[in-house]
């Protein structure tokens, strides 16, 4: 366990530039907002008194939606950095000419791989969580300032928003991690290109020969699409929020597809590590 901790620390040192980048992007984004608000405030362009929300059910529903929305920007940024880190996880040491140095340490390839996987995916989860907590505090403080608070709606929105991006990060990261074991460079793009190639090949064969070959892209998209927040459409005053939140928990976590997604992610990690372990080190 001590060796795994050492590997995590080493991989953190190597990856910290990429892992810290979302903080800088978020900080720049905040700076822009603060500047815009300041300019708007001094010019009198922002109608602060119109921020009052009304309606018994509308307020919690909107607070819930806002807290889910906290994740939209950092979530997408984190997904990009998850791809960046995991696509170089198992091939970067070879490119940097230090594979032999690391392989010559008395530690299992599985621990080494798990450390890279943890930093690539778990590290980005942690970054997302920290940014989201900061966003949560800022946004909910502003909402409270305008007299709009609902702890249950805020926290549910926050937790569901985080878990939805965490799941996409896990799947996307695992797929890219697998590609890093197969390809030497630009693993994600090469993986996507091959996937698209196979998909189009099957599509053409199906059209020309009338076969019914399964389209891999369809299965992958299906695997990724765990839920949409579609129930949230329509008039917010008509929404039964507790029912909506409970329904979302079932769609998001408590279902067989979640198990399948975790299983596929684990299988991709295991397959990537096996491929990596059996590669010759020249």
């Amino acid at each position: 366990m001590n060796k795994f901790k050492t590997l995590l620390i080493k991989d953190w040192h190597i990856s910290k530039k990429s892992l810290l980048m979302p903080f800088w992007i978020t900080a720049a984004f905040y700076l822009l907002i603060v500047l815009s608000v300041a300019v708007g405030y001094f010019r009198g362009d922002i109608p602060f008194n119109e921020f009052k929300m009304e309606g018994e059910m509308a307020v919690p529903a909107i607070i819930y939606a806002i807290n889910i929305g906290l994740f939209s920007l950092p979530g997408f940024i984190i997904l990009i950095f998850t791809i960046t880190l995991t696509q170089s996880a198992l091939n970067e040491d070879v490119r940097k000419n230090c594979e032999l140095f690391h392989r010559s340490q008395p530690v299992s390839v599985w621990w080494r791989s798990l450390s890279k996987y943890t930093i690539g995916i778990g590290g980005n989860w942690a970054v997302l969580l920290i940014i989201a907590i900061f966003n949560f505090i800022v946004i909910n403080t502003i909402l409270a300032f305008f007299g709009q608070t609902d702890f249950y709606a805020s926290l549910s929105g926050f937790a569901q928003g985080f878990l939805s991006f965490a799941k996409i990060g896990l799947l996307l990261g695992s797929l890219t991690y697998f590609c890093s074991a197969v390809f030497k460079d630009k693993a994600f793009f090469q993986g996507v290109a091959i996937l698209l190639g196979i998909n189009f090949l099957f599509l053409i064969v199906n059209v020309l020969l009338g076969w019914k070959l399964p389209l891999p892209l369809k299965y992958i998209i299906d695997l990724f699409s765990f839920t949409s927040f579609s129930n949230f459409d329509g008039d917010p005053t008509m929404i039964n929020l507790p029912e909506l939140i409970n329904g979302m928990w079932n769609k998001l976590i408590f279902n067989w597809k979640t198990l399948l997604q975790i299983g596929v992610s684990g299988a991709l990690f295991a397959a990537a590590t096996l491929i990596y372990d059996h590669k010759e080190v020249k």
Partner: protein
Amino acid sequence: MSLITTENLTKYYGKLKALDNVNLSIPEGRIIGLLGKNGAGKSTLMRCFLGFLKYEGNISLLGNSMKHHREDIHNHVAFIPDVSSLDDRLTVKQTIDYVSNMNDSWNAEKANDLLSKSDLPINKKVSGLSKGMKTKLYLLITLSLDVKILLLDEPTLGLDIVFRKEFFNTILGEFYNEERTIIISTHQVEEVAHILQDIIFIDEGKIILQEDVEELKSRYSIYTVKSDKEELLEAHNPRLITKTLGHVSAILKSGLAIEGAEINTPSLSDLFLEKVGGSNE
């Protein structure tokens, strides 16, 4: 006792035969030179020893079959491919911490001693170090390991003469004892000749010779005669005749009676050329 044995070891890269039926036995407590020209198969052999490459035949390292890389073997074997193979993204301190926490055989006392003697900038990234500094760092982390075998694969590649000498003198002074074996792979024979006890010549993937250096030197002599008496040397079918000002020399078996010949002890470089041949052969 043999620390490493190979039986019929053969390695292909595609159609290229990099190792050809190699049979070796590496004893304990020796400093062994694995010498060969560029592309002779030295690095391939080293990587096969550690199970980094797939091969045909058998390798036993400290009694363990190395058909597949076994990480626990690195508790007993340290490997330096070349000083550029350190991780450039870590600092000196991070590198030392990483290796020390990874290796149960880490000798903290020795590491501190070596660190205090060195002028390594502890917080600088490895990428910012000169080749000489990288060599010092690699030596520090390797010599602080209490292991039985040290494998050095062209460790001083690209280093200037000062650091090359310092490298091998440090290895000899800080690492070697009669229970430890050092295998040094190089194509620069002259820089390791003074520390070697045993020699292995490899050429085109085949082991040409494995012998004690002193025994080998005693078996051969350099015979030098005047240029007009070259036929005296040619009569013994030497592999190579070297011409110098007014004289010709050849390496032949010791004890030959050649009229008017000056006899000298050959260096390892001379023997290497005799056994393996020059670059323009």
